[in-house]
Each structure stands twice: as structure tokens, then as C-alpha cells.
């Protein structure tokens, strides 16, 4: 049976993740409506999207006609009512339970009964997000990885009230979109962040405990395990302030001591050492020196 999803809406499409999800949907042949509160953000994302497909054409990965067809399937709006045409709406808005619940509540009044809602949350409960609307049976977790337009993985999670048939429809859509879904329970962090966030905290605590320098820790991880990046390099890339937000999302729910914000992390963020974006984190990006925490 063909997938009933033809038109996809993306909420928060002015952001990096939302824009990437819109690319995934449009590239796979779905009519895609990008929604955000800010037309400026949508315009910026549209420019980046054109640049992304422009490079694909330059590199011979697709023809100009294909690019034009994809871009032709994409539209953008700041009017949520335009999402009434969607069979699937994927939200990638700010990682805040109340904001996501409110969004689904509004979508509930706009979209037809058959529309499936998917949340790109990486840390929050799908069941709790779904409780913001009256169609909890049609809400699924659909967590893309950054950058969504390049990463195949999607963590798919049913909420407590998700209809298995709806979950299957959403699952089939991810396959049709050329992605690789994996199924996880609706638990904090699903698989990826449940493993990664405490692991990165452990690396911070090892620095604080004087086990080794950040460079030696990263070297050990990369050489010993064949990882492409060490945990402290990765933390500098994602932002130390972001790691605190992840800890604050995890720890109150799990009470796992490994998920609690390490004291060194708090001190570094308070000192303005946020990682690459501030020029200094566990490493110094303004010179060749290294900051050891």
C-alpha cells in the first residue's frame, strides 16, 4: 500500500535542524511547507537550501532539473493555517515541553484529523508532548541527527497512546524519505543522547579529577576506539552551554548522577568559555594553546 503522506509541514524550519528536515522531505519527492514565526529566518534557510542543492549540482550528484524540481516542491510561510494541507507535520522548535505542547495544541485545531504529528525532540518525552493535543494516538517521536540533510539516522519512538498503525505509517515515511529509522522506547534521550550526554559528562569529570589533559583524553578515545572525534572536542563543537541544557533536561527526569551538570562545566560556562563559538572551551581556538579546565 502506498504511503498516505504526500505533503509534509516542518515547524521551526527557519532553524538549522528544521531546514535540514525540510530538505530531506522535499528531496524525497514530498511537497514541503516550511513554517516559522520569522520570515527572515525562513528566507535565510531558503538561501542555505538553494546553496546546498547548488553544490549538489556542481558536484554532479544531481542535475539542475532535479534541483529545480525539489525547490519547486518547497514553500515557506509564517501563517500556521497553511499547514492545514499537511498529512505529516514535523516539529523542530525550541526544546521546551510547554512550547511543543502549545504548538501541537494549535496544530490540532488547524490540521485535518488524519494528519500525523511528529516531534524532533532529542530529550523530552513524546507522551508528554503529545498530551498537548487531542490526537495523542497520532503523535510519534522522529528524532533526526544534525545535519539532518546528511545524516541518515532517525530515532523513532511511540508515545504511550500512539496507535501502532500510525507509528508504522510514520516509520514507512522515513524509509520513503531515504532515512534509516531505529525504534526506541519513549525514554529520556532515546538511544543516542542517553549514551552520549553522560559519557561527555564523564570526560569533563575526568579533566576535573586530573586524570589527564583534554588532549590526552581525546587522543585516547580516538586512537583506542577509532572515534573520529574525542568527547572534549565534540563538546567544544556543540557548545558547553548546550551541554548544560542537555544535563538540565536529563538529570531531573533520570536522577542519574552521570547526567548531572559537572561543576567544571558550570564554571567554564560562567567564565564565558562556551567552546568553538566563543573561541575557547576545552581548547583555545584563538591560538595554539590548550585550556585544561
Amino acid at each position, binding site marked *: 500500500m502506498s504511503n498516505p503522506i504526500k505533503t509534509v509541514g516542518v515547524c521551526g524550519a527557519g532553524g538549522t535542524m528544521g531546514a535540514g528536515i525540510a530538505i530531506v522531505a522535499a528531496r524525497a519527492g514530498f511537497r514541503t511547507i516550511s513554517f516559522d514565526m520569522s520570515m527572515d529566518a525562513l528566507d535565510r534557510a531558503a538561501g542555505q537550501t538553494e546553496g546546498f542543492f547548488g553544490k549538489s549540482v556542481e558536484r554532479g550528484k544531481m542535475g539542475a532539473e532535479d534541483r529545480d524540481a525539489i525547490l519547486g516542491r518547497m514553500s515557506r510561510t509564517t501563517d500556521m493555517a497553511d499547514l492545514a494541507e499537511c498529512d505529516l507535520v514535523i516539529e523542530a522548535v525550541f526544546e521546551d515541553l510547554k512550547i511543543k505542547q502549545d504548538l501541537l495544541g494549535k496544530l490540532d485545531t488547524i490540521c485535518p484529523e488524519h494528519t500525523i504529528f511528529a516531534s524532533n525532540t532529542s530529550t523530552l518525552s513524546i507522551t508528554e508532548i503529545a498530551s498537548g493535543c487531542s490526537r495523542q494516538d497520532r503523535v510519534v517521536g522522529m528524532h533526526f*541527527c544534525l545535519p539532518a540533510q546528511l*545524516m*541518515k*539516522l532517525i*530515532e523513532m519512538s511511540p508515545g504511550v497512546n500512539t496507535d501502532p498503525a500510525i507509528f508504522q505509517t510514520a516509520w514507512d515515511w522515513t524509509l520513503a524519505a531515504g532515512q*534509516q529509522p*531505529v*525504534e*526506541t*522506547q519513549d*525514554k529520556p534521550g*532515546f*538511544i*543516542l543522547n*542517553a*549514551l*552520549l550526554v*553522560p*559519557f561527555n559528562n*564523564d*570526560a569533563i569529570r*575526568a579533566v576535573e*579529577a*586530573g*586524570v*589527564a*589533559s583534554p588532549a*590526552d*583524553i581525546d*587522543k*585516547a*578515545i580516538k*586512537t*583506542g*576506539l*577509532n*572515534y*573520529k*572525534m574525542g*568527547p572534549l572536542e565534540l563538546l567544544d563543537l556543540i557548545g558547553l552551554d548546550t551541554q548544560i541544557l542537555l544535563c538540565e533536561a536529563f538529570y531531573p527526569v533520570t536522577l542519574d*548522577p*552521570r547526567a548531572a551538570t559537572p561543576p567544571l562545566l558550570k564554571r567554564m560556562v560562567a567564565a564565558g568559555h562556551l567552546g568553538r563559538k566563543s573561541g575557547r572551551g576545552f581548547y583555545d581556538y584563538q591560538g595554539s594553546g590548550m585550556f585544561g579546565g
Partner: protein
Amino acid sequence: MNMTYEIRQSGESRSFPTGDAFLDGGEAGADVVILLGKELQADPSRAAILVELGHESLGVHTGEDAGREGSNVLGFARFRNGDDAPSNLIELVRQPATPDSTIDAARAVFEGAGFEVAVCTDQAGRILDRLIRPKYNAALRFLDEGLATAEDMDLTCRLGLGYADGPIERLERGGLAHHYDATKALFDVNGTAAYAPARRALVAKQRQGD
């Protein structure tokens, strides 16, 4: 800096198994002595004496002195995932008062042989076991709790994090009993739940019969 090394060995080494090319490069009377299963004997005339470690602290071999310990003796271990072939990583274990010249000499020997060296202090699990064992414990617990299948957890780590392999396949390949040994040693020192051997590792160890 060029450094020669002498190997004194008793029994099989986990860092340098029989046939490892590094074993062929030793020479008597060299700058650095490498002890593979041999008991430590002080020799201040050497640039460094390197003691191969298992899960124990270097202090077990050298004795400790209220944080003032440190000499020309270092510990080391070449990281292995259980029964897998050894990696290219040497964890070099120092003490608070270890001279930099001793570390430089040890580094020169190992890097001269093509290894990557990461220096760490004498703490349980060194760098890698301290960091990866709690994560592997979590993955084993997630498996028991039904968070996801082993295959999906491994696939998530490969596709989502770019790892060469996932935690479950890595543990299965290297041997869960080895994971038990590593976590038991960490738990004995730290006593926190994160390091306590996971149920599946305990089962593997019990089935191994030792």
C-alpha cells in the same frame, strides 16, 4: 629524542602478545627497561622503567607516599577491547612527582615504535576504562530494559555518532567477561552504581567459571 629499550618478560603480555614486532626491538643495557610480568627492581641509572599494568594501580608496584610518590618508574598498558587485537594506544601512567624527563623517555620509546601515547595519572581505569565502562554498562542495562534492540543501539552509534562500532557488538566481540573484570576493578575503587558490573557481564563471568 632517540631511546633504546630492554624488555624483561615473564609470561604472556596483553600489550605485546607473542609475535608482536615491538618485542623484537629490545636490547640489553638500553636506556629504558620495560617490564612485562617481571617484578619491579629499582634502577635509578635508567631513563625510565616501565611496568605493564593490568587493572591495578602503579602504586601497587612502587608503593605510595601521601601524594609525594614519583620516580623513574611509570606504568603503561596498551589498550585492548577484551580479546580483540591490541589497539595502537599506549596509556602511560605517571605519579605526582614523576620527572618530565622520565615521561619524555617513555614517550620516545613508544612513539618511536609507532604508538600513540596518552599520559594519565594513577587513577582507576586510567582514561579509557574509566570513560567507556559506564557507557557500556548503560547500553547493557538499556538492552535489559528494552529501550531498543542490540542491533538498533549499535546502528544508532554508527550512523548517529560516526563510531566504528556500537557498544553491544564491541562488548560481544571482546568478551563480556573482560567487561566484568574492568568494571569490577573500577567499582572496587569508586563504589558507584555506574561502575558496578552490568548483569549481562556478570552472567558471562559466571558462565566462564572463574
